[in-house]
């Protein structure tokens, strides 16, 4: 038996899913989309149950990737039962989705979650009367306390059935449903979808659109709006019957501070800066630990094997790639994701988006785009995936440019490892400054020059909550997976190929070739430019390669401060790493990928050349 969890975003669906399934969860991308589906199995009294956690949505008829996914999922791989999760503190709006869901006629049970929070707010819910109105079992739960979660599965197995409620639509809509049924044999659900322009049956949608046009000209209100209003009205009536009167919530809300320009914006900046600081401090510590252990346990024994030279070269290249991935980027990225999941699960991120809305408008984006931008500080790969969820091509293109310019944790390693260590802390900070100025200039330039409309932000500010540690870890793990499974294989492959090239002397030949440009334009020795090329694989490899090629870890003794600075600026700016290029290609297409790569190469060498001209 297969059953799916459906509900609004932030109703505690994932927490319920976690408690139902425990470990052994499988994450997969739904075919043809980037939206993730969580699946888990459980056994209850000898029956096996497969549970799918569908993404949180506001409507079954919406246009977002998540909403389309849930719709397609229900229509094509119809589950045997649906667990509809409602938020007890927002019953009316949650009932709106439930009424839509009822139209799919799938057996369901209703879970009213966060009943504890509702009690705090003085909201009383009559779940028995809701159960009799809907004709399905209704369970009150408090997932954060684990209350009543164990009642869900027995209810699904014993008494899930299609909800017996029908939304009464205005006579014109009802008439349209009847005539579409007669003309095309459409069910009520199909007719309603077709009236809103959703569906694949060409003649039905065409016929429905003609009727919808008539309805619109008669009412001067589009059919989707009338349908939506009818559902909201029905939801309001049900809510009036089952939700007790609510006393105004007089408790102190942190939003009095968080969403005000002052002190909200200083708090936002402080939060972001302290995130970066924590990542840096904790990351460097873990990095040292992992690299040390790995070198002692794996690399040194491998070198002691004294294999044939080619095997040693290739093996070392592969091992270095693994240590680079696991030992350097992994601690930084993972810690960053934990922090990101925390600010996301507390609900702070939506407030950040609201505050950043204005700044993002300057870049032709809106507040919602702050999320990929912040993610990019960890690793550009998942940030690009998040950016590809933006609504228009224009937004996606601009976000692709900006996100790939954000200094990810690997680039942080370069800035700190080369500049902070050998030049000075202020110099290191000045690199961040240069990068941010360039991001702002690029954003403003692109906003003015890429044609297309601007969509604004419509974003729910989710209530502030204490994050659940298990959920935070799980979310961070899901995110790091992308990094491990997309970035690591590329890193390994690229590293081995470069190792082979180096073995056959191609690198030396390349150094000779690049020498005039490197020395003349950038004022860097040829081997430094070769090291920069390694940076395409993974940014921090530029740093390691530089150390290997220059023959010493004390870079300050072989390169001048200006040379080190130039090297760091170029490697931070130019070309996203190969994993980012791959993900750009997959999500944004060849044109954007090419443009981003060409632009960042040009920018890197331009700024590098400028620094050489001025300071060299």
């Amino acid at each position, binding site marked *: 038996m297969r059953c799916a969890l459906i509900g609004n975003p932030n109703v505690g669906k994932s927490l319920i899913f976690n408690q139902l399934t425990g470990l052994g969860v499988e994450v997969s991308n739904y075919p043809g989309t980037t939206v993730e589906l969580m699946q888990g199995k459980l056994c209850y009294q000898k029956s096996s149950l497969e549970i799918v956690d569908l993404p949180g949505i506001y409507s079954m008829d919406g246009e977002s990737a998540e909403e389309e996914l849930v719709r397609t999922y229900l229509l094509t791989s119809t589950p045997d039962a649906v667990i509809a999760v409602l938020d007890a503190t927002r019953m009316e709006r949650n009932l709106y989705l439930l009424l839509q869901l009822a139209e799919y006629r799938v057996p369901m049970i209703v879970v009213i979650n966060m009943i504890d929070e509702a009690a705090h707010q003085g909201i009383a819910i009559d779940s028995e009367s809701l159960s009799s109105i809907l004709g399905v079992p209704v369970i009150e739960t408090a997932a954060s306390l684990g209350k009543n979660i164990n009642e869900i599965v027995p209810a699904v197995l014993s008494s899930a059935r299609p909800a017996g409620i029908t939304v009464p639509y205005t006579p014109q809509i009802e008439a349209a449903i009847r005539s579409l049924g007669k003309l095309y044999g459409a069910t009520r659900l199909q007719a309603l979808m077709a009236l809103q322009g959703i569906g694949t049956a060409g003649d039905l949608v065409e016929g429905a659109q003609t009727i919808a046009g008539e309805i619109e000209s*008669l009412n001067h209100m589009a059919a989707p709006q009338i349908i939506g209003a009818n559902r909201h009205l029905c939801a309001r009536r049900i809510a009036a019957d089952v939700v007790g009167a609510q006393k105004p919530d007089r408790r102190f809300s942190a939003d009095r501070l968080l969403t005000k320009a002052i002190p909200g914006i200083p708090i936002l900046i402080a939060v972001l800066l302290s995130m970066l600081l924590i990542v840096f401090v904790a990351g460097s510590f873990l990095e040292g630990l992992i690299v040390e252990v790995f070198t002692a346990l794996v690399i040194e024994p491998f070198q002691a094997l004294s294999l044939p030279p080619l095997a040693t070269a290739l093996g070392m290249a592969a091992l270095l790639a693994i240590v680079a991935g696991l030992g350097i980027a992994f601690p930084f990225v993972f810690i960053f994701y934990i922090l990101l999941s925390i600010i996301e699960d507390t609900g702070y991120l939506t407030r950040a988006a609201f505050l950043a809305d204005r700044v993002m408008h300057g870049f032709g984006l809106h507040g919602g785009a702050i999320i990929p931008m912040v993610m990019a500080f960890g690793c550009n790969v998942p940030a690009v995936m998040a950016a590809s969820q933006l609504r228009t091509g224009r937004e996606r293109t601009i976000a692709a440019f900006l996100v790939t310019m954000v200094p990810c944790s690997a680039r942080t390693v370069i800035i700190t490892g080369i500049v902070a260590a050998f030049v000075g802390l202020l110099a290191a900070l000045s690199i961040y400054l240069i990068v941010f100025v360039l991001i702002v200039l690029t954003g403003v330039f692109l906003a003015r020059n890429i044609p297309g409309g601007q969509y*604004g932000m419509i974003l729910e*500010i989710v209530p502030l909550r204490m994050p659940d540690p298990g959920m935070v870890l799980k979310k961070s793990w899901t995110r790091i997976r992308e990094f491990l499974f997309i970035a690591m294989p590329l890193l390994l492959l690229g590293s081995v190929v470069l190792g082979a090239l180096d073995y056959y002397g191609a690198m030396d030949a390349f150094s000779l070739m690049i020498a005039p440009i490197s020395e003349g334009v950038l004022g860097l020795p040829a081997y430094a430019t070769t090291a920069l090329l390694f940076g395409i694989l993974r940014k921090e490899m530029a740093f390691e390669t530089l150390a290997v090629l220059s023959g010493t870890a004390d870079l300050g003794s072989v390169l001048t401060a200006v040379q080190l600075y130039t090297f760091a600026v170029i490697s931070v700016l130019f070309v996203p790493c190969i994993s980012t290029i791959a993900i750009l290609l997959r999500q944004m297409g060849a044109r954007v990928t090419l443009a981003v790569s060409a632009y960042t190469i040009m920018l890197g060498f331009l700024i590098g050349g400028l620094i050489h001209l001025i300071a060299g």
Partner: protein
Amino acid sequence: MGYMNTSVREDCLEAILTLTQANGGSVTAEGIMAAVDANQAAVEAGLAGLVAEGAVRLENGEYLLSPEGKTVAESVLRKHRVLECFLCEMLGMDTGAASKEACVLEHGISDDTIDRLSRYIERPGHGQRRHCAGRCRERSLLDFAEGDLIEITMIRCLGRNRRLIDLGLIPGEQIVIRRKLHNNAIVVRVKGADIALSPEIASTVFAEPVR
């Protein structure tokens, strides 16, 4: 007096219809008086006349439209909307004035004229016609202050922002402005949830204060 009488009656019918659509039932005499621009005595007389005619039924202090009453009300409402749309979108009148003017004109215009006018407005190639649903008021969300309780009257280009419908931001809904930054990004409370809107979205949502 005869003409005045009809127009007040038609205004009452129209008010009952819009109030029914907005609140879903429970239309009281007070609600109608607030919506109709005439003195109290005239409205009371008009309502009494409508009940006597059978266009309106009075049940437990609530006014309900009979089928005949509804037909008349729909026709008047349609006239109002077509006229208002014509005045504000094509003649460029300000929305408040267009609505007032439409309120007067709607009682004298014939069905045929309205049909022709409606077709004229919707003629393709006439530039982009904005949705002019309901009574346009010139105050958008940006014209209100933090803490204001307001009722949405109209949303422009709702088709572009389907999520507004799904979150409950629809005409007739009462919302509170929770936060407004100096850059006009706002947070509104709708159905118990706080929704952040960019300035360009907030400017498409029109509302009036709830008394």
